[in-house]
């Protein structure tokens, strides 16, 4: 089955072509069967390859397809690498992807006021792009050289652009201001970007990251002379001794690409706006798979980062800073999807913190579990939105738990996992990261724990407001109903995964099996003179475990206290700390900052170039200028031709005299 791994890419591409070219003709029903089927088959191929690789003891196998580019000594084959790391990603992508495809078949059907359903206008176009995304993501993870990874990198960027901008004709919607009580003036919010604009914003911010990644790849080629993983990593140690400064540069440049793609500081701004796309898109791309590409890249090139401790620490710091920063914003968001968006940015921060400190398996572990519960939460939010006619503002929800039983329960499970409630998958993965981070630097750990608390708080703030308490908008409440089976099926499967996901990596210090460690071990290159694994004492580990459990439960209880027992507290608190609240509500004014720093000056410069330099200076002064000059000069000459025969005769006469006097007097 390993040799057939290329099927995982070929199948979605096949689905993409069928739906794309014949979408209208074969009808929406067949489209909604083909798309998920392709992803399911890909998943099955992945599972087959998984068991084969398990049997082989995790040793990598390359599946060459055809040589892509050969110019002189620059030779890049198109070949797929089947090894534990790429397989993990394949399984996550295809698995979660399949569930989301099933969910989307029901989600993209809108029921209007009087109950009967009609499909979304470009139903087939949506599934074409969804399959395109799955294919591009698999190219990224399965590629066995940096160029294939870069190709996948850009392709996922494009598919996210297409999917975010799916409802391209919807205008930007204004957000109702947050009122802080009767006598104070409410906090106004900027309108949400239209899908088309946010799609473009996502693509361009991604591309800025891609510039870093491309430069990293160029530097890799000019130092190693090749882009193949299996040729670079073995020689990495010897090259880093020969040219000490090169490896950190490569690591840094590649990390810039990761910042762009995985929405870390400072290039995270596109992710919240990407919520303008349909919810399955947000779940698949902006929670489970694409945003984790950066983490995958760092885990894949782990030897490079281990050889560049400075850059790794920077990765960890940026990761943790993003986690903390995003968590603070999520505290006050009123849009359920944006709460989850900032939570994704925050959780990604955790993963980068993990890989930054060298805990690659912990990073992957959290990546996998996060994929499950974050996809679950997004789909839950989608189901709520679906039921309430695309209303996602939690201030108009309330008491939905009676109306949407399954969504409520699964949302709870997802929430618990995200918050890191003990025994849930999130708990184990996040705790492992925090343990490793603590080993590296306690300050980072402190921020980590704080963020964990905040995560628990904002997750359950959203749950309590949305599902519990009294309904705030009766018309909406009346109309709410549980979503149809495909949605509930996807939710329940993901809920199961969210609960038992933790089994992948139980804490080793308790003697429990850590499957992922063993599984990913062949991928990680050990530094020859690596410091031996200094184990923290059993007590310290236990203490960390306990603190993170306490913080999680504390966060949940605090949310319960704020929103269930004393609902007036949040409003009073917000009113008293109005400036801080407004700052968080406006997302630290980052979007406006970027707009004034980069976008407007860019446009002004362009305008200056276009009108000023191009039109006036080059075109008018030089080109037409010289033309006018010659024209005027010609005008002077033409004055000599004044039409009087007399003057012509005179001219000839003078000429004659000059000639004669010259000849005779010479």
């Amino acid at each position, binding site marked *: 089955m390993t040799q057939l791994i290329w099927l995982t890419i070929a199948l979605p591409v096949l689905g993409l072509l069928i739906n794309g070219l014949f979408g209208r003709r074969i009808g929406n029903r067949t489209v909604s069967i083909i798309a998920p089927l392709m992803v399911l088959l890909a998943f099955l191929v992945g599972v087959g390859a998984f068991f084969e690789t398990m049997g082989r003891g995790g040793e990598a196998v390359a599946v060459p397809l055809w040589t892509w580019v050969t110019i002189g000594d620059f030779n890049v084959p198109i070949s797929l690498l089947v090894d534990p790391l790429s397989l993990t990603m394949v399984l996550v992508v295809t698995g979660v992807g399949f569930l989301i495809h099933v969910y989307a078949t029901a989600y993209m059907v809108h029921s209007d006021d009087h109950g009967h359903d009609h499909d979304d206008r470009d139903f087939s176009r949506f599934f074409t792009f969804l399959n395109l995304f799955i294919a591009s993501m698999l190219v990224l993870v399965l590629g066995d050289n940096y160029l294939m990874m870069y190709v996948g990198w850009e392709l996922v960027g494009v598919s996210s652009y297409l999917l975010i901008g799916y409802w391209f004709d919807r205008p930007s919607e204004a957000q109702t201001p947050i009122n802080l009580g009767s006598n104070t003036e409410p906090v106004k919010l900027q309108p949400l970007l239209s899908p088309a604009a946010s799609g473009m914003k996502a693509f361009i911010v991604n591309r800025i990251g891609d510039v870093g990644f491309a430069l990293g790849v160029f530097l890799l080629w000019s130092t190693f002379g090749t882009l193949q993983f299996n040729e670079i990593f073995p020689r990495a140690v010897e090259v880093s001794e020969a040219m000490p400064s090169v490896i950190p540069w490569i690591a840094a440049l590649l990390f810039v690409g990761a910042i762009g793609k995985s929405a870390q500081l400072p290039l995270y701004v596109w992710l919240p706006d990407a919520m303008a796309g349909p919810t399955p898109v947000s779940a698949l791309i902006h929670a489970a798979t694409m945003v984790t590409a950066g983490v995958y890249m760092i885990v894949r090139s782990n030897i490079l980062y281990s050889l560049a401790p400075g850059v790794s620490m920077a990765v960890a710091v940026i990761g943790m800073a993003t986690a903390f920063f995003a968590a603070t914003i999520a505290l006050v968001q009123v849009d359920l999807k944006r709460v989850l968006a900032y939570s994704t940015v925050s959780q990604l921060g955790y993963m980068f913190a993990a890989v930054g400190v060298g805990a690659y398996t912990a990073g992957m572990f959290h990546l996998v579990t996060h994929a499950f519960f974050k996809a679950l939460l997004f789909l839950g939010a989608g189901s709520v939105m679906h039921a309430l006619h695309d209303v996602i503002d939690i201030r108009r929800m309330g008491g939905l738990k009676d109306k949407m039983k399954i969504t409520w329960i699964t949302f709870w499970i997802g929430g618990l996992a995200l918050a890191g409630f003990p025994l849930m998958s999130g708990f184990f993965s996040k705790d492992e990261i925090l343990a490793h981070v603590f080993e590296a630097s306690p300050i980072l750990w402190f921020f980590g724990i704080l963020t964990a608390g905040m995560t628990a708080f904002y997750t359950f703030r959203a749950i309590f407001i949305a599902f519990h308490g009294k309904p705030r908008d009766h018309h909406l409440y009346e109309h709410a109903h549980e979503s149809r089976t495909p949605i509930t099926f996807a939710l329940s499967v993901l809920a199961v995964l969210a609960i038992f996901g933790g089994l992948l990596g139980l804490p080793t210090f308790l003697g429990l099996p850590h499957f992922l460690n063993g599984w990913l071990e062949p991928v990680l290159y050990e530094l020859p003179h690596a410091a031996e694994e200094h184990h923290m004492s059993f007590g310290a580990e236990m203490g960390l475990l306990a603190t993170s459990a306490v913080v999680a439960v504390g966060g949940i209880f605090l949310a319960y206290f704020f929103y269930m027992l004393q609902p007036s507290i949040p409003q009073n608190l917000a009113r008293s700390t109005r400036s801080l609240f407004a700052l968080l509500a406006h997302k630290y004014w980052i979007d406006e900052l970027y707009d004034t720093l980069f976008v407007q000056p860019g446009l002004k410069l362009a305008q200056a170039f276009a009108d000023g330099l191009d039109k006036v200076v080059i075109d008018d002064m030089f080109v037409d200028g010289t033309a006018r000059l010659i024209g005027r000069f010609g005008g002077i000459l033409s004055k*000599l*031709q*004044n*039409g*009087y*025969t*007399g003057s012509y005769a005179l001219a000839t006469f003078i000429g004659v005299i000059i000639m004669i006097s010259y000849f005779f007097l010479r």
Partner: protein
Amino acid sequence: MIGQVPLSYYLLLSAILFAIGAGGVLIRRNVIIVLMCVEMMMNAVNLTFIAFSRYLDSTTGQIFVFMIMAVAAVEVAVGLALLVELNRHKDSVNINDFNSLKG
């Protein structure tokens, strides 16, 4: 009796006639007079030719004068025809009125 006149006299005379002709062309504005003066210039040249042909004892000069006469005749004919045509258009004979061919 005829032979005593030296060649230089003839050359000087034709130079004077030529100069007068040229002066006439430049000074006068009446086209007919201008054409006449051109004729005079041509005759001055004829005189030189014949003088040389006589003193250098070769008939080529005279053949040349013969040709010049033909040219002169045609030139006057065409010149006057043009004058008539222009006159009908601008009904004036002043040479400066015909100045539309200008830059």
